């Protein structure tokens, strides 16, 4: 645990020592609020639903920007060699870095509270929807971060890591949609639907907090972090 915290602190510090964290926060909040309030007053409905349905698409573009440097940077600067010869487990380094990016996500979501409160003040609103929305957004965000961290571990190039993360996250978002499922039927369709981020997210943000969806996201996070650890270990394959 001590080692995870040390890595976590180091990563968090480097997010805030560089402009990344600030730019990330500002860009996210501006885009999210702009798109949400742009139609909010026109619709005349007191609901956060449009806000939470925007979130996956904003995440898709900006979370990879947060994760692209996690490992690529270490590989490029040689930090990998030092980091992985410290007396820590590879998985501790993976987890520490993942947690740091999640902390930024957490701060970001916290800063959207004024948006949510504005809506709450304007009318009667379903509390479950807000709580479910935030839980869903956090879990979806963490999954994209875990995916992005994994992508970052396979390349030295941050841009490549960014684009791969966006592409793969996009695939995970759309494979559960009706229009992608249309050509498939039966088992394949239900597998695709199950694997996709979006159906699980939509259930949660609809206010239905089901254990299955939470477990799905946690499973996805651990799956990507596991792959990330395996990539680090691959340097040690004899051959």
């Amino acid at each position, binding site marked *: 645990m001590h080692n995870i915290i040390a890595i976590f602190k180091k990563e968090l510090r480097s997010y805030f020592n560089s402009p990344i964290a600030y730019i990330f926060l500002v860009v996210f909040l501006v885009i999210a609020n702009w798109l949400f309030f742009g139609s909010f007053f026109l619709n005349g409905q007191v609901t956060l639903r449009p806000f939470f349905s925007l979130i996956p698409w904003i995440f898709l573009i900006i979370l990879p920007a947060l994760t692209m440097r996690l490992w690529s940077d*270490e590989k490029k*600067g*040689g*930090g990998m060699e*030092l980091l992985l010869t*410290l*007396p820590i487990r590879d998985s501790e380094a993976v987890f520490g870095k993942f947690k740091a990016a999640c902390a930024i996500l957490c701060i970001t979501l916290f800063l959207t509270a004024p948006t949510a409160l504005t809506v709450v003040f304007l009318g009667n609103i379903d509390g479950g929807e807000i709580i479910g929305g935030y839980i869903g957004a956090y879990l979806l965000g963490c999954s994209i971060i875990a995916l992005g961290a994994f992508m970052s571990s396979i390349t030295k190039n941050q841009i490549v890591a960014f684009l791969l993360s966006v592409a793969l996250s996009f695939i995970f978002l759309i494979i559960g949609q009706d229009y992608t499922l249309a050509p498939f039927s039966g088992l394949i369709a239900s597998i695709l639907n199950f694997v996709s981020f979006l159906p699980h997210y939509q259930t949660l943000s609809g206010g239905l907090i089901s254990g299955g969806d939470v477990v799905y996201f946690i499973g996805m996070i651990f799956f990507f972090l596991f792959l990330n650890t395996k990539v680090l270990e691959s340097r040690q394959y004899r051959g």
Partner: protein
Amino acid sequence: MISIEHLSKKYGLLQALKDVSFSVQDGEVLGFLGPNGAGKSTTMKIITGYTAPTEGSVKVNGLEVWEHPLEVKRQIGYLPESVPLYDDMTVLEYLQFIGSIRIKARSAFNSGSLPLAESLARVVKLCGLANVVRRPIGELSKGYRQRTCLAQAIIHNPDILILDEPTSGLDPNQISEVRDVIREIGREKTVMISTHILQEVQAVCDRVIIINEGRIVAHGTTAELERQSESAQSVYVKMRGLKEKIHQLLLDLPDIHEVRHRDTESADIFGFEVTATGSLDIRERIFRRAVSLDTPILEMRVERVSLEEVFRQLTK
């Protein structure tokens, strides 16, 4: 101590190391010498547990690196060749980060390490970083970067120190400071440094291993290596007289292999290199002959084969 047996490493088709075996004792500073691409860094990466060998075993204080990575890593301090630092951190933040991990891991098994604050103060002093502790690493000169990275490697007072080209990029004053630090540490600890600078080996190492194209081509103390390549002793002698006469005088000596004119100081002062057959000391004979023919000797010395020469011969 480090013991390495039959170590081989392949990167795809490239054979980086071929059946390398050696050991480094406690309290010894081993110089690992070789041209670029000889396999020095690869060997160090294997010892520190960064990459795995294709074959062979590496034991650090009796523990196989592959079976006990954490136990081994906590005993080692490592300065990689690439000098990895985080430019957006200050020197202090960086040392706190590495120190907190290294010291915690070490203190769990060994009471010999100081708490973080004291360790920090010690390495900052030892590596001369007091003036820059609060500066971002990105702003530091190459010399300070190198020393910051060295500080990181010794912060937990490790039993084993692996330094990959520790003095590259330093100015002569800094080089001698870093060498002092290494010598200081080398008194009690096991130190392995890689370098292609020969003076460095002579200055700090007890023993040298020369590696070329993945194989060990020579090992021993610096003096032993110099002796090894002294196939035949040669003597440089400077005399006054006619050039041809001196040449003949030297050639007439018994057991002479070769006499070669080396330099001309003035119209009647000439330098010659005389090689005897075998390892015979011919200085006295030259002296007696010169006296008997009334040809003054102005200078005479045994030509030592330098380590540099050894290195060049072995790694050609």
